[in-house]
């Protein structure tokens, strides 16, 4: 049995859907029913072409300028709840980004339906069910929705590979919902982007991540050097993000980014399960750690027991020498 109507919540940044939205649309197409997108952004309509190409036939678009000036999760969830009441989707897929989580929780409360979080897969055979993994991705669980529609699933980015469906632009259907005054009390005053040079963490073919074992924030410069040399991106464990060594945008793991590079190099990272869920999908893993018992070695294709601060500069020298 297919899912008759699947909605994908389309988060829009700078007039473009974020990559995870295209991944969800790709998956939604395979569920067999109608696929539609819902977006709340003054620039939502600009996304109709891309959303259509990846599978949405209709784009329900809320384009009130206020969506760009408020904490978006609240008004978006309330409008989505009203809209879902009218159009009765069977399943709403939401990427577990910051905004996605804000929307999903409030939406579930408004509609009085459950939400399944941390999803990695979704299936529409019989009851809609969501696959996820627990305990540091050592066990896979399948959770089925039982009654209560729509089913709401929060899916981690990078769970599916986005593929164009070759469709034309989605038909834009304007959303009329008004924004309640209580939401106007929470305003977005400023957005400071944390810029980084080089490839994006989520897109890089090599990711070099540092942890507390680097000992000092200054030592991240060595990772930066290596990254520049081989065209990689630098990531980090939460321990060093919380300590303020590097910005949050570099965090890999359960509460950070999910990366799936060709090679992931973990330097001075113990391999706590909350870290490994964000990098376990890498093709190959290299780990450098002083402690032979560090759990990260269980995942490593190549593990080196030793002092990262000694080894990394040698690695850099040798690569330079090879490059000539």
């Amino acid at each position, binding site marked *: 049995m297919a899912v008759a109507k699947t909605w994908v919540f389309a988060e829009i940044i700078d007039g473009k859907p974020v990559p995870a939205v295209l991944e969800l649309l790709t998956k939604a197409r395979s569920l067999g029913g109608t696929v539609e997108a819902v977006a709340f952004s003054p620039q939502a309509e600009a996304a109709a072409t891309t959303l259509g190409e990846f599978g949405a036939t209709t784009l329900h678009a809320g384009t009130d300028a206020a969506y760009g000036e408020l*904490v978006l999760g*609240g008004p978006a969830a309330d409008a989505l709840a009203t809209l879902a009441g009218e159009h009765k989707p069977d399943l709403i897929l939401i990427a577990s980004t*910051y905004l996605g*989580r804000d929307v999903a*929780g*409030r939406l*579930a*409360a*408004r509609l009085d*339906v*459950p*939400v399944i*979080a*941390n999803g990695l897969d979704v299936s529409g055979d019989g009851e809609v069910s969501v696959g996820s*993994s*627990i*305990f540091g991705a050592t*066990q*896979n*669980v*399948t959770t089925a929705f*039982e*009654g209560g529609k729509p089913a709401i699933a929060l899916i981690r980015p990078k769970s599916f590979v986005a593929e164009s469906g070759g469709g034309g632009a989605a038909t834009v259907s304007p959303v009329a919902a008004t924004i309640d005054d209580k939401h106007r*009390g*929470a305003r*977005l005053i*400023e*957005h*400071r*982007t944390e810029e980084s040079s080089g490839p994006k963490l989520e897109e890089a073919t090599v990711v070099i991540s540092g942890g507390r074992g680097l000992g000092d924030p200054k030592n991240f410069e060595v990772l930066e050097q290596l990254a520049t040399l*081989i*065209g990689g991106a630098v990531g980090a464990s939460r321990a060093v*993000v*919380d300590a303020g060594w590097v*910005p*949050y*945008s570099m965090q890999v793991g*359960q*509460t950070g980014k999910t990366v799936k590079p*060709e*090679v992931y190099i973990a330097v001075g990272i113990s391999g706590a*399960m909350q870290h490994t869920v964000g990098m376990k999908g890498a*093709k*190959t*893993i*290299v780990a450098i750690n002083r402690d032979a018992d560090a759990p990260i070695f269980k*995942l*490593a*294709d*190549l*593990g*080196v*027991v030793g*002092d990262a601060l000694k*080894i990394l500069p*040698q690695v850099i*020298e*040798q*690569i330079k020498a*090879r490059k000539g």
Partner: protein
Amino acid sequence: MNVVVCVKQVPDPNSTGQLDPSSHLLKRDGELVLDPGDEFGVEAGLQLAEKHGGEVTVISMGPERGLDAVRKALAMGAARGVLISDDSLRGSDALSTAKVLAAAIGKQEFDVVITATESTDGYTGVVPQMLAGLLDIPAITFAKSVSYEGDTLKVERQTETGIEVIEAKLPVVLSVTAGVNEPRYPSLKGIMGAKQKPMERPTPADLGVEGVGGASARQTITAVEAAPERAAGEILQDDGEAAKRIVDFLSSKKVI
């Protein structure tokens, strides 16, 4: 400013979790501790109340055994606690949890409700927004810094791409990240005093909530299986050759 902080009792985060093979519920028979993430919430609440006048109430839903975990928040300085324990609440999903907490919060006077961004054992990360939806107030999530001036709460929040600066009128639900502050250690005096502080123990019926708990959960785990393990790799001791091995490896993967 009166603050309600939601705190969860969780199994010791340093031990690996286990599912009960028959019920598929998380085994929680070991010792329960105050979720380390919630210590940041308690600290944030205390700082707001100390600076702007008012009191902190901590609210937790969880088993009796977790009483000491909740008392830790009182030892840190919260004025009173509310612990909702009931057998029927076992196996609650996030929405059930939020309904119970929201009902308990509704009985308090509050300007701000604080949670952590996600619990250490459940990590659905949706309870804060559900609370905001049920209380019908805005949620500001992933706060990295919080201050209050005039009648405006100023919050810097994390996003994937950087920091958003938010200004909000009260009341709001606020979820705080680890790193928002440096949680204080309970003092000896605080620990002694915590036992004397009021601890309410309402039942779900006292709070007027129905249709919550495991029996009315509308999601069930239908399968659990071991994830495929990665094939074992090569682990070597650095004897001066390790750097070369790494470079060879990178070059065999064609990244250099």
